[in-house]
């Protein structure tokens, strides 16, 4: 039989091959026995044991998730413990056992009553229904042990298939054993997707009901790059998939097969990510987000604190460049000490450079001082300063004036400050249209494809309903990129890209063909992109870019890609 391909949403740029194992936490319970056959006391004890065990599991999973993923994702388990130990649940279960139900049925009925109530409410309440289902399924697994697949004890090389995977489910998955997973529902921002990315598990979500045609025991390839599940794959597909999982780390810089150097850098959002970025062979940092310094605290960080952080970043890449984006906040991120306005649409409001040249001017100057001092005090590496959300020449000129003043101030204080490389993010249609005017003011452009796609297509990131529109493979997005690289052609301005698009090896050839010379991405994909760069022939890449720019639809673009 020939292979079958099911398509879904790609989540991690990783590929895995394995044996399908269906995980069905909501499998039917056994037939309900007659009330007279139920030993109430024993059932109540069984419920209490299961509850204690579930609580112990949740505590352990909370720890593990806090370590592997982060505090925010771990907090969900606190809510689970509270639902688990809720007096209304305990009372409901006890009453039903008293009425002659076995513990498992009593748990299912009690939870389902609340699930229904919550699911009928809007928005956030419906999410609580998911939490309740999650706790219910955990209890049922413990009460009916042996009848369900245990995610923490899967055989090596399993590919888990499920309707959906909850945070509890994914927390149990052992990335060493699991070759990947695929789910019927879910989008790029679902819990399962976030977990898959942080644990580097190949995954495809949102496959739809077609996934149920896969039987337990069938061989499947999870191609996280194309977002496909290949059932009963040919030998060639399996061979290609196994190769794809083994990109080796290259410390050295890479060039295309015909000798054009492409800088492959990492995006970093916290100091903890600096080491891993270097370990994965990143040439430098193409996007150092500085928001972590400013969020979750009562006062702005002072110059000295920022200085230490920037110095450390520059020193981590002694041979490379660290591109630091100045503070990019707006009404969507709470910063208690900044007077952030309550805006109808914070993504189109006072944010990024608009605040740095307005209400946050002092903060902007302090940040530049800290950056330039850190650069002056490090003999190695090099600093580049990048402005977020630029739309006009005036903004660049105003920021340049501040930068020049800071250089002079520092020099008059006896610090040997030098003007760093100075550039802007291209993340708005305005910036792409005006790039030819911007070139005389900057040293570089860095295309932020997540925001660029969102603003060009008027399609919100993270909204599954418009995910196909917000896709950076839309021809409109490619044309905005082309406008930027074309504007820089024949000048000294280099053009890089930071954002998800840069980290997709399937797009590397297209991006090189469009004229990008720097690609910055999550550290996890650096080795795969470096490998891909070294295989590319520039002339072929240019021809590919020309065809993609002539495409009339996203489908046509996708057809051109490997």
């Amino acid at each position, binding site marked *: 039989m020939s292979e079958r391909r099911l398509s879904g949403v790609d989540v991690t740029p990783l590929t895995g091959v394995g044996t399908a194992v269906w995980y069905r936490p909501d499998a039917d319970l056994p037939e309900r026995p007659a009330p007279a056959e139920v030993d109430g006391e024993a059932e109540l004890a069984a419920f209490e044991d299961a509850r204690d065990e579930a609580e112990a599991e949740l505590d352990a999973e909370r720890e593990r998730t806090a370590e592997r993923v982060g505090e925010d994702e771990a*907090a*969900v388990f*606190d*809510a689970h413990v*509270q*639902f688990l130990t*809720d*007096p*209304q*649940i305990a009372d409901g279960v006890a009453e039903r056992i008293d009425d002659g139900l076995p513990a498992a049925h009593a748990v299912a009925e009690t939870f389902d009553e*609340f699930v229904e*109530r*919550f699911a009928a*409410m809007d928005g*956030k*309440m419906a*999410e*609580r229904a998911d939490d309740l289902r999650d706790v219910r399924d955990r209890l049922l697994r413990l009460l009916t042990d042996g009848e369900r697949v245990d995610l923490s004890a899967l055989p090596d090389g399993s590919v888990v298939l499920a309707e959906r995977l909850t945070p509890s489910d994914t927390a149990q998955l052992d990335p060493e054993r699991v070759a990947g997973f695929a789910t019927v529902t879910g989008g790029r921002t679902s819990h399962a997707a976030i977990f898959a990315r942080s644990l580097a598990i190949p995954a495809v979500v949102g496959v739809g009901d077609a996934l149920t045609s896969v039987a337990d025991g069938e061989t499947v390839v999870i191609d996280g790059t194309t977002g496909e599940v290949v059932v009963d794959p040919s030998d060639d597909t399996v061979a290609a998939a196994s190769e794809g999982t083994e990109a080796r780390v290259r410390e050295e810089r890479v060039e295309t097969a015909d000798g054009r150097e492409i800088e492959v850098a990492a995006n970093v959002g916290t100091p903890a990510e600096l080491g891993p970025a270097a370990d994965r062979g990143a040439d430098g940092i193409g996007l150092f987000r500085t928001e972590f310094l400013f*969020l*979750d605290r*009562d006062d702005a960080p002072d110059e000295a604190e920022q200085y230490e952080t920037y110095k450390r970043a520059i020193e981590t890449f002694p041979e490379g460049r660290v591109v630091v984006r100045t503070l990019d906040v707006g009404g969507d991120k*709470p910063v*208690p000490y900044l007077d952030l306005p309550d805006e109808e649409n914070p993504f189109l409001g006072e944010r990024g450079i608009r605040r740095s040249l307005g209400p946050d001017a002092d903060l902007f100057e302090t940040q530049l001082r800290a950056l330039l001092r850190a650069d002056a005090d490090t003999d190695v590496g090099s600093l580049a300063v990048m402005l977020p959300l630029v739309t006009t020449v005036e903004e660049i000129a105003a920021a340049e004036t501040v930068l020049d003043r800071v250089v002079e101030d520092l020099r008059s204080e006896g610090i040997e400050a030098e003007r760093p490389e100075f550039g802007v993010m291209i993340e708005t249609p305005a910036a792409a249209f005006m790039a030819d005017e911007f070139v005389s003011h900057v040293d570089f452009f860095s295309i932020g494809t997540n925001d660029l796609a969102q603003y060009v297509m008027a399609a919100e990131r993270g909204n599954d309903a418009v995910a196909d529109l917000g896709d950076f493979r839309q021809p409109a997005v490619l044309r905005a990129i082309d406008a930027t690289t074309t504007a820089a052609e024949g000048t000294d301005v280099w053009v890089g890209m930071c954002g998800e698009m840069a980290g997709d090896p399937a797009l590397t050839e297209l991006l090189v063909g469009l004229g990008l010379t720097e690609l910055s991405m999550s550290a996890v994909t650096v080795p795969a992109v470096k490998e891909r760069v070294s295989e590319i022939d520039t002339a072929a890449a240019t021809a590919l870019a020309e065809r993609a720019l002539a495409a009339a639809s996203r489908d046509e673009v996708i057809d051109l890609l490997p």
Partner: protein
Amino acid sequence: MPERVVEVVPEEGLHARPASLFVETANEYDAEVSVGPEGAADDDLVSASSMLAVTGLGVAGGEKLRIVAEGADAVAALDALEELLSTPEDEL
């Protein structure tokens, strides 16, 4: 019985983390704490020690809550809960 009307400052309202901390805090005191929307009759108040009941109120940020406590440390419990509800979520 000591009681108080408090505005819910966390933008998210009484969900997820704020709700979780609210229930945790209520459970730290011996006093029996019950809670409901501002103006709720005594019979319509629910137990503050039940995550299900508290979340089920569906309270949004900016809404006001009536909190009633009964027991030796009732006032201390109300103080603690009021402080919690008056703290923006990112500072919790």
